[in-house]
Structure formats: structure tokens, C-alpha cells
């Protein structure tokens, strides 16, 4: 009798793993296609039906991309912008979120609704007034413009606020009684407890900025300022596109994110439940 549930469980586990591996393969298919296409010649990329094995393997794309495109500059610019935006977004976002979640001031909820409201407006519909404004300050065609565009979004505030709300007020209350200032509570209690949310916010902000295309397209002209997405787009001409090189660049541009993500894994699942919150 006792053995059967274990056997069942074991089969269940195996099935679960098989299912997950199949799903993972399916999910990675577009990425696999990117890699395969990056090893083809241009005219082999799009065919009907799909050629899953390049013939011949064209490794030279991984050399050409550095010669034909200025990958070093693009990566440097994209990295600079993404890091600055992420830091600003995470710091000011989580700081403001504390204000919205754990302090009370008149107009707080209305202001918060205003934040969410702007998420509901497509960027394209107000990008021109915004561009005119930043241009008049002389910020067009600089990396600062891209940083400013992304750094103060409502997303980070909203995400962190919701997370702080799942942290019991009783904790703050106890800290106040212990004489900690509100800033102290934010720094000493809230930040350490919200590591999973901070980690999510960091990776999401980073990826969004990293992959942003329309912003750099509108704001950046000089070659020295191009980001990866903008640079890769230059392999698309009016009537021709160097698809193989675009895919090579895309593969290279995904790798840093994948590595950061894998390394940052443990922070996503660092539970506050294990850090001693008691009712």
C-alpha cells in the first residue's frame, strides 16, 4: 500500500519533467531560429519550408558583425543607458513607493491614480510633444534624453508599492516604536524585505531599456550614440535587409541578459517568509 503513492509520485515527477522539457524546447524555438539564422547567408534566412540546418555553416557572420557594425559602441551605449535607467528607476521608484504605501498625505491616492493613468497612454501618442520639449532643452541626440525618458516611469512605483503592501504594517509600527525614522524603515526594513520585487524590477527595467527601439529611433542620430537595437536596424535597407547579420546581433544582444538572469536567480525567490516575519 505504502509503495504505490511513491511510485505514482515518481511517475508524476517524470511526466512533469518531460512536459517541462518539451515546453522549454517550444519556448526556446524562436531563439533557436535566431541562432540558426545567424549562421546562414542572407538569402538562406527566409525560405519555404524552413531550413533548420544551415548549409554551409557561416561562422563569419560573428566576425562581420564587429566589422560591418560598430558593436562595441552600440553595446557600450546600450549598457550605459540601461544601467543608469535601471538604477534611477529602482531607487526613485522604490523610494516613492514607500511614500505611497506606508505614509499618508492628502491627495496621495489621486496622485497615485495619475501615475497609473499615464501607463494607459501609448507612448507614440505623446512622443512628439515630449520630443519637442527635450529638443528645446538641447537634449535631443544625446544619451541623456533616453535615460530621462525611461527612468521615471510609473511602472516601478506601482510594482514596489504593491509589494510593500504585502509587508505587514505591524513591522513598520514596531520599528517606529524602536525609534527608527521613516527613511530608516525604508532603508533597513523595506529594502531588505523586498529583494524579490527589486530583482524583478531590475531585470524588467533593464530588459525594456536594453530592447527599446522607438525611443532611440526618435532621439538619436549620430553613429557614436547608437544603441544595439538602433544599430541592428541599420542592416535593414530600403529594399534589402541583412537578416543574417541582424540575427547575429540579436543573439549577441540577448546573451548578457540571459547571463544576468541566470546569475540573479536566487534573488527572485528569496522569501521574506524565511526572514522572520511573525504575526
Amino acid at each position: 500500500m505504502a509503495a504505490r503513492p511513491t511510485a505514482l509520485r515518481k511517475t508524476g515527477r517524470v511526466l512533469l519533467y518531460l512536459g517541462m522539457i518539451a515546453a522549454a524546447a517550444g519556448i526556446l524555438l524562436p531563439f533557436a531560429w535566431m541562432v540558426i539564422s545567424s549562421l546562414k547567408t542572407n538569402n538562406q534566412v527566409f525560405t519555404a519550408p524552413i531550413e533548420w540546418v544551415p548549409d554551409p555553416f557561416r561562422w563569419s557572420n560573428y566576425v562581420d558583425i564587429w566589422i560591418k557594425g560598430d558593436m562595441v559602441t552600440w553595446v557600450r551605449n546600450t549598457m550605459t543607458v540601461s544601467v543608469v535607467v535601471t538604477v534611477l528607476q529602482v531607487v526613485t521608484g522604490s523610494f516613492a513607493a514607500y511614500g505611497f504605501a506606508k505614509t499618508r498625505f492628502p491627495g496621495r491616492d489621486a496622485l497615485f491614480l495619475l501615475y497609473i493613468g499615464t501607463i494607459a497612454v501609448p507612448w507614440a501618442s505623446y512622443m512628439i510633444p515630449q520630443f519637442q520639449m527635450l529638443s528645446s532643452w538641447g537634449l535631443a541626440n544625446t544619451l541623456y534624453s533616453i535615460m530621462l525618458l525611461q527612468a521615471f516611469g510609473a511602472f516601478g512605483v506601482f510594482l514596489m508599492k504593491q509589494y510593500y503592501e504585502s509587508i505587514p504594517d505591524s513591522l513598520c509600527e514596531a520599528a517606529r516604536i524602536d525609534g527608527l525614522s521613516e527613511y530608516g524603515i525604508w532603508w533597513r526594513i523595506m529594502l531588505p524585505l523586498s529583494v524579490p520585487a527589486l530583482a524583478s524590477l531590475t531585470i524588467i527595467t533593464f530588459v525594456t531599456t536594453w530592447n527599446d527601439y522607438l525611443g532611440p529611433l526618435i532621439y538619436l542620430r549620430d553613429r557614436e550614440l547608437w544603441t544595439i537595437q538602433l544599430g541592428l536596424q541599420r542592416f535593414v535597407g530600403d529594399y534589402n535587409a541583412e537578416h543574417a547579420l541582424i540575427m547575429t546581433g540579436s543573439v549577441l544582444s540577448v546573451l548578457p541578459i540571459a547571463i544576468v538572469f541566470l546569475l540573479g536567480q536566487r534573488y527572485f525567490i528569496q522569501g521574506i517568509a524565511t526572514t522572520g516575519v511573525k504575526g
Partner: protein
Amino acid sequence: MATPVVDNPGALGLPYSDPPQRRAPRTSLKLRNALVGWTFVLPNFAGFAVLTLIPVLLLFYYSLTNWNIFGNADWVGLDNYARLIGDKSFHVALGNTFYYAAFHIPLTIAASLGLALLLNQKLRGAAFFRTVAFFPYVTSIVAVAVVWNMLFSPEYGPINQFIGLFVGGELPGWTVSKDWAMPAVIIVGTWRYMGYYMLLFLAGLQTVPAELHEAARIDGASVWQRFWNVTLPCLRPTMFFVTVMVTIESFKVFDLILVMTEGGPGQATLVLSQYIWQKGFEQFELGYASSVAVVLFLICIGVTVVQFLYNKRRDA
């Protein structure tokens, strides 16, 4: 000890009632609290107000003009809105947007929550699977569109070849058929964003105290009961966040549809964001496009407020 740890996230409600203040001078304390609150919000708000809020307010103004991007904007009052009422393409875009949202929202929430619950467990290789689930969001959208379009290809695509093994007759035309293009886009949209929202749910799941689960298990609660009575209530703030974000993002869906179908065939997958782009940047009627954006904004805000109120009622 076993009362739910999570306090009432009452801050979500619009009007709030002052909690009884026990400590000394009420008004000065209130003022001090307000000041402290503002200092938290201010650094972000300064950037937000200048860079986002002002342009958004300008958008509202432009929706009442005939601005064509260049030159002056002449005041036309509510003309743009009047025009929307009779604009059939706008109606089509509105309908398609709701169509997309109606399926994308529940599917994405279910898929991402399911993934988060699964990958929050101590599974061998969970780290790897978490990374994999996030990959669709990281992969270039062009590659995503290309591969899915090939998979959906009516003649050569593996999906139809697979379906053909079981079903006879005419197979779906997917992205090149009026009836099937939207389902195809919904599938890809869900696939692309489930890992993204999974991440947010994963963060939320970390706030669910293990002791509670333990206690419930000792009390003999089933997996389902534990999910329903322990996990879900603790997850409510995250659930609210994810629901609002998925809702807004699906009403705003743009780039995915653009790269997959360009709104076609015909107008089968034309959505509001794309209509805004078409009117604003292909036909240079940014004033009119702004009025579409305002409508989209009102829809999103309307739905969000309903979610607010619902969430508040659940709290109460």
C-alpha cells in the same frame, strides 16, 4: 499566531479614513507625516511630472485641435470626438482591441500564475526553467514574429501539419485568414508575456509565509484549499498589480501585432494603438490620433477603477 500575516492593504482605496491617532498634537503630526510622505514621492515625481505628465496633458489638449504635427494646432473643440463616432475603422479597431483583451488577459494571468506556482517549488533545474520562461520576453520581437509566422504558415507550417494528422478538411489559415489571425496573435501574445508576469508573481509568492502553509497542511487542507485560502489572499496586492498591468498592456498592444500581421488581413487585427500610429504618423493627423489615445486612456482608466473598487470590496 495563525491570523493571516498580511495586513489590510487598504491604501488602495480612493478615499481613506484617518486611522485613530493616539499620539500627541494631531495637526502638526499630520503635517509632518504629509511632509515625510512627499519627500519620498518627490524625487520620482519631479521627473515623472516634467517628462511624462506634461506631455500627456498636452496630448489631451491636442485631441481638441486639428494638429498635423507640423505648424500650428487650431482649436476644433470636440470635432475629433464627433468624427470618432462615425469612423468605421475606429469601431473595427475598438472591437478588435476588446477581442484581444478579452482572451489575452485571462490566458496570460492563468499561464503566468501557473508557471510561477510551478517554478516556485524546489525543483531540480527550476532556475533554468525560470530563465527559459522569461526568454520569449527577451528575444527580439522580430525573431518572435518570424518564427511564429513560419509555424503558423498554412501550407508549410508545422502547426497545421500537426493538426492535419487529426483533423480533415480545411485547416486554419492563421495569420493570413481573417477569422484566425486574431487567435494566432493572442496565442503569441500570451506566450510572449507569460514569463514576464510570472516574474512578478514569483516576487509576490515570496511574501506568502511558509508557516501558514505548514499550519494549513497540518489542519488537513488540500492543495487546492491551501492555494485558495492561503496563497491567493497573500498574493492579492500582486494579483491586483498584475491584473491592472495586463489589462492596460493588452488594451495598448501594438508592436506584436505590427510585426506579425500589420493589422491584416484586411483590418482583421487592427487595434487602437496601431490606429493611433496610422492616423498620427502615416497620415499626419496627430490631433485626431490624440483623441483616439484619449479614448484608449479612458477605457483603461475605467477598467482600472473597477478593479480598484472590486479589490477594495474584497479587502473590506
